[in-house]
Every structure is written in structure tokens, then in C-alpha cells.
């Protein structure tokens, strides 16, 4: 990897570096990024939606100062969308444009076999790198200065694609039949994220370091909100984080994620709120609860939740 090693001298350095680019990492995350760099292994990140899995990859790219190349997985994703594709249009256009040229080349030949022989001397022209459309995976391998490759929501892709990923993740090379094997000029730093909609294969897990991110502790989440929402008071942050943590313990369908905590914090700042109160919470519930059923459940307990939040962060 050509990413400067001095950034990865210590774990603390990694943690502070990530903090500089706006990602508050706990020790576990910093340890994982540090280890992944030194072992040169991909990191498989799992956890509930909205805990900052994708964000981690973005922050890592910013921290290492290399481009982030993102591959969003979905059902039916295949090699031509992920790895490379031939530029059919360009190939076709060029054959049309060069028609005269081609005629000239085979002019002198008398038989069909001879013309084909003649053409064979040029056959690789239309299947050369100029006609290759690199897709994210190939692009990541070709980056000279290294890159962060983010394979997002790998659980949404099919089993076949997962198997196909294995070659790239273990050897960092791909083979294109017409051209040959392309090796990574410098190994990309790979993050894979998964929401566990499907059980991933053992083989893929074995090749990766596995990081499970759960919802952060209160003080960490407070720190995250403070960094992400400038101008918010410490007291309000304490109250709203305490409130969110209580809501996460309720029996609701979709628990509010960190990004939703941040949204709510931003809303409160715009409303010039200094303190949480029942009415304010009731009016802004829909910024972090996205199902009518959840809003109803939370509204029932609104009074106790607000009281608790105020008591915890007076």
C-alpha cells in the first residue's frame, strides 16, 4: 500500500486522524482500522442500519487522503457492472470510421483466407485498454496512489457475485480474457458493509477482518453530535442523546440511528431550543421516528422519557 505509513504509526494516531475528518471512532474501530492496514486485509463491517458503517469508509479515505471508490451492491449486480465492460458503441463507431482503412489493408489480398490472415495481425486493436470501460473494482485496482474501495451492502448482492469478489479480495488481481491479468498497482484498502439481510458465506468472512459496530455509548454519541452539529449546547446534547437511548430500548420497529440523532439535533438547533420539553419533542418526533406505529408507542411514554432525559442531563 502506498498510503503513508506515518499515519498508521500508532492506534491513537489513527483515532485522532479519523476524528480530524469528522468521524468519532471508539477504540475498537480504531484498533480494527490500524490492524487492517498492517495486515493488508479487507474489513467486513456489520451492524444495525445507520451506525456509520459507510461513513467509516468515507472517513478512512479522507484520513488517508486517497480517493474513495464505491460499489453499491444490489440484486443482479454482475461483473460487467462491477468490474469492466467493453465500450460497444466506441468499438462499433471505430469500425465504421476505419472502414476505408480496413478496405485498404485487405485490398491486395486475393482470397478470403489471406484477408483474414492479414486482419489477424491487427485483431487486438478493438479489444485493447482504450476500449475498456473500468467499473469500480477495476478502477480501485488501477489507482496508482492507492484507494479506499467501499463495497456497500454486500449482503444485497447474489451468491455468485460474492464468490466472484473472493478472487479480488485475496489476490487483488483480475483476469480479463482479451487482455490478461491486471494486478493492483497498489493495494486498495477495502471496506465491505453488510446489514445482514442475508447470511454471508464463510469463505468471504474468512478473508476479512470482522468488525461489528453497535449503537455507541452515550458519551461517544454526545461527542459525535457535538462534532457534527456545530453550535449545539452541551446540555441539549446530553438531553437529546439520553432521550434517544431510551427510545432505542422501547419495543419499536425501526430504532433511531445515529444519523437520525444528528438530524434531530440539527432540527432543534434551527428551532433555537435550549432544553427538551414535551411539546417540542412531540412536534419533532417525526425527524427520528419513521413509522406511525413507533411514533404512537413513543408518544404514550413521552412524559416519562422526557423527565428521565432532563434528570440525566440537567
Amino acid at each position: 500500500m502506498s498510503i503513508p505509513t506515518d499515519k498508521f504509526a500508532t492506534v491513537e494516531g489513527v483515532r485522532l486522524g479519523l476524528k480530524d475528518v469528522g468521524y468519532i471512532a471508539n477504540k475498537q474501530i480504531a484498533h480494527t482500522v490500524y490492524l487492517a492496514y498492517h495486515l493488508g486485509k479487507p474489513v467486513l463491517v456489520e451492524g444495525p442500519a445507520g451506525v456509520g458503517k459507510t461513513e467509516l469508509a468515507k472517513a478512512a479515505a479522507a484520513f488517508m487522503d486517497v480517493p474513495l471508490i464505491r460499489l453499491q451492491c444490489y440484486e443482479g449486480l454482475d461483473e460487467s457492472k462491477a468490474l469492466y465492460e467493453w465500450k460497444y458503441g466506441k468499438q462499433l463507431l471505430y469500425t465504421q470510421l476505419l472502414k476505408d482503412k480496413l478496405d485498404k489493408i485487405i485490398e491486395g489480398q486475393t482470397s478470403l483466407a489471406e484477408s483474414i490472415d492479414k486482419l489477424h495481425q491487427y485483431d487486438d486493436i478493438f479489444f485493447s485498454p482504450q476500449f475498456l470501460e473500468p467499473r469500480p473494482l477495476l478502477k480501485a485496482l488501477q489507482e496508482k496512489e492507492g484507494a479506499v474501495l467501499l463495497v456497500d451492502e454486500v449482503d444485497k448482492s447474489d451468491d455468485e457475485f460474492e464468490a466472484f469478489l473472493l478472487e479480488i479480495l485475496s489476490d487483488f488481481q483480475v483476469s480479463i480474457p482479451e487482455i490478461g491479468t491486471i494486478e493492483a498497482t497498489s493495494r486498495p484498502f477495502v471496506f465491505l458493509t453488510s446489514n445482514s439481510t442475508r447470511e454471508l458465506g464463510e469463505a468471504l468472512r474468512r478473508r476479512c477482518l470482522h468488525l461489528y459496530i453497535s449503537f455507541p455509548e452515550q458519551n461517544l454519541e454526545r461527542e459525535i453530535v457535538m462534532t457534527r452539529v456545530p453550535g449545539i449546547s452541551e446540555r441539549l446534547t446530553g438531553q437529546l442523546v439520553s432521550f434517544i437511548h431510551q427510545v432505542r430500548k422501547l419495543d419499536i420497529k425501526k430504532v433511531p440511528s445515529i444519523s437520525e440523532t444528528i438530524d434531530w439535533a440539527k432540527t432543534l438547533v434551527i428551532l433555537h431550543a435550549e432544553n427538551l420539553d414535551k411539546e417540542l419533542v412531540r412536534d419533532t418526533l417525526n425527524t427520528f421516528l419513521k413509522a406511525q406505529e413507533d411514533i404512537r408507542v413513543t408518544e404514550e411514554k413521552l412524559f416519562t422519557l422526557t423527565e428521565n432525559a432532563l434528570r440525566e442531563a440537567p
Partner: protein
Amino acid sequence: MDRTLENFITALRRCGVRISVAETMDALRAVELSGYGDRQMLKDYLSVSLAKSLPEKKVFEVCFSRFFDINYVLVEDILMENDGTSPAIQGAAFLTRALLAGDGGGLALALNEAAGRAEVRNIQYPTQKGLYMQRLFQELGMERLDRDIRRLAEEESPDAQAQVKALESMRDNIIERVGNLIERQLELYAGRRLDEAFEGYMKNASLSALDERDLARIHKIVQRMIKRLKDRHSRRQKAARRGHLDFKKTLRQSLTYGGLPFDTRWKSKKIDRPEVIAICDVSRSVSNVVRFLLLILYSLNEFIPRIRSFIFCSNLVDVSCLFEKYQLQEALARLRSGTDIPILMNRTDYGVSFLDFKDQYSNCLTKRATVIIMGDARNNYWNPRTEVLRFISERCRRLIWLNPETPSLWGSGDSEMKTYLPYCNVARECSTLHHLEKVVEYLLRVN
């Protein structure tokens, strides 16, 4: 290789975490980076390189604290308040000296080595605790400690008496702590083996005597089987028949390129996702296995997205929604007690139940559907209405009958199994997990 890490990986494996050689290498390199000094760092490093899923992480947490706490806690608990100035005793054993001098490090080392020599790692069953404890004491030199204590007791001086007292209580501490140590080692190394033994036993035990306690564990076993079935299915959705050119599609595609067949299309075979209709008998005649049948039904519901579930006794009821709403225990309790379910628990009537199905739900019978009927076919001499079953059988892809009775009893007394048999694609006995496994294997084969 690092001995401590090796032992830790053995412990993890015994607890059911699957660790490959490649992962072991990763862990080794990680430990080289971290060393054993920073506990949090060591834990994080090992966690990301060894435990690769959430359940495994949980096992890892437990194993890690059990494994790395053993040495620390033990020694501190044994040594008593001791000024370390006790006069050395002539010809005393190492253990006696270490105890009297308050030498924690030496004691820990001695204990660790003794545990290694006694091969405590190999402990498998709770009944072996005494044996391994004796071995460990022997390796540790407890006899010599006892001898020293006896010899000291013979001396009259108050100093010696005090030492005897201190040594005796420390000896008792050792006995207690070593007991704990063995206990923990048992948990650490034998947890998985007990599970395996249990699984082996459970597979062949008849499930009529299914205990409430074991439900969760059996549920897990059943889940694994059904998941295998489901995995196989989902993987085969797009079995491509490579090598067969699809002329029609290729021609159509080539229109874009002025008739040049640039983009070739190949024939591929699509296999549909399974649609399952499960019908389960809950009458009194199957009351001893009904819990098992419902367990299968529940597990099917967990893994197969498109499934309709019905239970019947005197009539037939759709219970699909119940499985989505409630946890296993709750769902089973509701199904058995009939809370909120309009089911009549009089005499079983297969004929009427099938008729109910035909009248109300025959629209879900498609050429893709597999119908699974679970029941003993004991119809109380009512009209079996084979024509209805035939109607169902003709309209679905496959009809599978799982009968909790052995085939030799089929057709005896009021059993209508023999009459129904011609309309089933498959009819199997299914009263133990072993049977279920066979059924699952059969399904995997024919698919």
C-alpha cells in the same frame, strides 16, 4: 507457535467458533502487533480476526474473559495478608516457600505449569472434575505442602503455630480456587462437546417426549436443517445453461448494432423461489408430537418467504400471520391453546379439513407450490374424501406427507394413510430429528 494463543483458539473452537488456519495466522500477526500487555487492544485484535459474526462475537466475549481472567484472579485470592518476613523453613517445599513469601508470580507460574502437566485442557465431562483436580494437586506438590504443615505443627514455637494457621487457610484457598479453575476449564473446553453429545442423542430420541427446556436447542437444530434446504433453493435460482446460444434474443439485440451480432445472449434456466403450503394436524391423536410438528412449521415460516400455514382438527384455519407476530414459545402456546384461533377441537376430520382448504384457499394452489401435510391420517372413520386430496395433489407441484407414525402402522385402525398414499408424491415417517434430516436430504436431492 504462541502457546497461549494456540490454547485460546482451541478453547474458541470447542465453543463452536469456526476458525481456519488462515485466520489463525492473522491472529498471530495481530498478537505480534499488540503483544499481551494491553488487554483491550488484544481483545479487539483477536475479536476482529477470529470471530466473524455476531453470535461468534458473543461466544468470543465469554471465552476471552474466561480464558484470560483465570491466571490473574486466582493468585490474588489465594495469598493472604502476609508481611513476607516469615523465617524460611529448612528444607521446605517450593509451594510452602512461595506461599509464605507471598510470591504471587511464582505461584501463578507453578499453577499454570501444573495445569499444563495435568492436561486440564482435555477435560470433557463434569464427572471428570475430581480426577483432574487430583492430578493438578499432585503436579503442584500439595502432598509436600501437607507434610510441611504437619512438620511445623509439631514445633511448639508461636511463630510456627502462626505459620501453620496461615498455611492451612491458604491451602484451603488453593483447593477452592483450583476447583473453580477446573470448573472454568470445563466450561471453556467442554461446552461444545456437551452440545454435540446432546445433539447426537436428540437426533435419535423420539420427539414425543419433547421437553419444554430442550425446545430452544431443538429449534436450533431444526432451523439449521431448514436453512440448508432454503440455501440450496436460493442458490439455484439462476442455473445458467452455459453454452446454449439464444438465437432469438441475440437477433433482437443485434438490431441496435445494424444487424451485427455483437452482444450475444445465452440461454439461462430460471428456477422459481419455492412456494410452500404447510398443513398441520393438531388433534389429540398426534398430541404427543404436535409440538415437534409445530416447531417444523415455525422454522419453515422463519426461512421461507412465501409460505402459507394452516392447522386443522375438525376444521381448517389459516395461521400464517401468527408466526410473524409472535416468538416461538408464544406462537406455540397460542397454537396449542387455540387462543384467538377459530379452530374446533372436536374429532379430527381430514375430509372436512381438506374440503375447507379447497373451498377457501384453493387459489393459492399453483404449479409452483409444494404442499406439505403433517399428520397421522387418523380420521375417526369419517369419510376420507380422497377426491379432495386428489384435487389438491393435481393442482400443486408436489405433495409431501410427513407422518409421525411408523409405516407399519399406516392403514391400521382408523388410519387412512393407505388411502391417501397414491396422491402423495412423497410420504415419509417423521417423528425424530433424524427422520427430518432424511426428509430434508431427500428434498435436496430431488431439487
